[in-house]
């Protein structure tokens, strides 16, 4: 018997590749024999751009690295500059940043829940998730004037004092109920369980070997969350979601549980912000900003895994070299291994469960 195989181009224009990921699959029937991700359709030269413009000119662009969670990347760049100049952030700025980061994380996870269920063929959760995400985006729009590219964090603080805290209060009072609703319609659905339980198994060793971080790693049972050692989150009391299964279902469940934890963190930040006095911050003058020569490194727990920024400065007003590490980039690399031997419709579920977003991969 001869086995005939054929190549299938999944993407770059495909409804479920969440952007412009192209997977060259070798199929035997519907079974995947090999997978070769092809990226770069969204490459904007973020790193090259940084070498040619000053830090403050670069700051608005970094939101675009991950359009679903832009705050995290502006936070990273701000942190690099603050660390280099030895600036300590006031508590209120920290609380504001934590609150916005966690709101952004929830928005990102909500979109993922919707998109993942869409990949599995369920239409409604997408709209339910977008309804709640809309509330968060509305708040961001009120506060920063932008729905996705906030550009709210600046070197040494935030652009203006926090406002509209009532909206946040409303969001976090509604969200837990809504998350319960998602769980009711999704989590115990037998078809959903069949599609995700035991699919796309990722054990700790493989995950670490492929440098997969974030929720994907924690859903495999590894306790690794940089928020614990993060100075921004100092004083906040929160749990880290760790599940042992390591399958697509665990990754879904971990994100749902993480949203609840984020609500918890926002609650604490909100309590602090409500009683705190007006904002007093000493912003770094961005004009002709020069970092002292040396290497700087900062990392943060972004929704899609560990994000880090490396800057080498030679004392000029531009970085000599700036490198981003993004979580999705390594998840895409993992697809080479995790999809082999799966069937096409499981492959979509598995690739979806890793939460890959292409602007982050291509930078």
């Amino acid at each position, binding site marked *: 018997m001869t086995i005939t195989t054929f190549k299938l181009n999944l993407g770059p224009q495909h409804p479920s590749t969440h952007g412009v990921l192209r997977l060259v699959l070798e199929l035997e029937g519907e079974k995947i024999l090999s997978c070769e991700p092809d990226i770069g359709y969204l490459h904007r030269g973020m790193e090259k751009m940084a070498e040619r413009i000053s830090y403050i000119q670069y700051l608005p662009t970094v939101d675009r690295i991950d359009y679903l969670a832009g705050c995290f990347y502006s936070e990273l760049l701000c942190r690099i500059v603050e660390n280099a100049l030895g600036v300590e952030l006031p508590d209120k700025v920290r609380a504001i940043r934590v609150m916005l980061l966690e709101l952004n994380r929830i928005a990102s996870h909500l979109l993922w829940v919707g998109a993942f269920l869409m990949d599995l063929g369920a239409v409604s959760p997408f709209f339910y998730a977008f309804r709640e995400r809309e509330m968060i985006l509305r708040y961001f729009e009120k506060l920063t004037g932008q729905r996705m590219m906030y550009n709210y964090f600046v070197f040494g603080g935030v652009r203006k004092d926090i406002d509209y805290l009532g909206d946040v209060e409303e969001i976090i009072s509604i969200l837990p109920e809504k998350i319960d609703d998602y769980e009711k319609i999704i989590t115990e659905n037998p078809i959903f369980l069949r599609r995700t339980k035991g699919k796309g198994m990722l054990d700790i060793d493989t995950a670490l070997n492929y440098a997969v971080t974030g929720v994907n790693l924690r859903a495999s049972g*590894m306790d690794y969350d940089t928020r614990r050692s993060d100075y921004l989150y100092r004083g906040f009391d929160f749990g880290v979601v760790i599940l042992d299964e390591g399958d697509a279902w665990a990754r879904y469940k971990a994100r749902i549980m993480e949203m609840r934890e984020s609500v918890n963190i926002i609650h604490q930040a909100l309590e602090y912000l409500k009683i705190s006095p007006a904002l007093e911050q000493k912003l770094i003058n961005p004009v002709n900003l020069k970092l002292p020569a040396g290497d700087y490194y900062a990392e943060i727990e972004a929704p899609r895994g560990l994000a880090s920024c490396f800057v080498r400065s030679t004392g000029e007003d531009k970085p000599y*070299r700036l490198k981003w590490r993004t979580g999705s*980039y390594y998840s895409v*690399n993992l697809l080479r291994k995790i999809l082999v031997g799966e069937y096409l419709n499981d492959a979509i579920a598995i690739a979806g469960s890793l939460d890959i977003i292409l602007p982050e991969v291509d*930078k």
Partner: protein
Amino acid sequence: MDWSEFLRIFNDCELDGNKIIIKSKLREVINFVIANYTYNMLKEIIANDKGEGKTELIYHFYSTDDEEDMFISITVDGEVESIADIFKSAAADENEIYDLFGVKFIGNENLKRLYMPEDWKGFPLRKDYIQDDTRLAWNDDNNV
């Protein structure tokens, strides 16, 4: 972490904080580090252009047990051994560095242009790269 044993064996290395600067024998060093320390994750490989065709590669390791970062820095001259078989994540990083810096990783057979088009000339993150609009793919006569 106790590095005295390491420095005794690889005596041409320098230790600078949590950064080790090595001159050569990358694979041996990394194998030794994995065998004797708890580093189990290669977070990333950072490449810096040093000029004159030299590239500094910084391997960023992390130990989940001890929660410690460690950097191994090596300056290479256009070629270096690949460690993609030790850390699978390195395959992705090496490919990116090949694409943007032109460093060849011996032993990694999957190197290809990643972000840049296949027929792109030059490596954009090198300092000697001249950004020339006529070399953009969509201005190329072959690409009509």
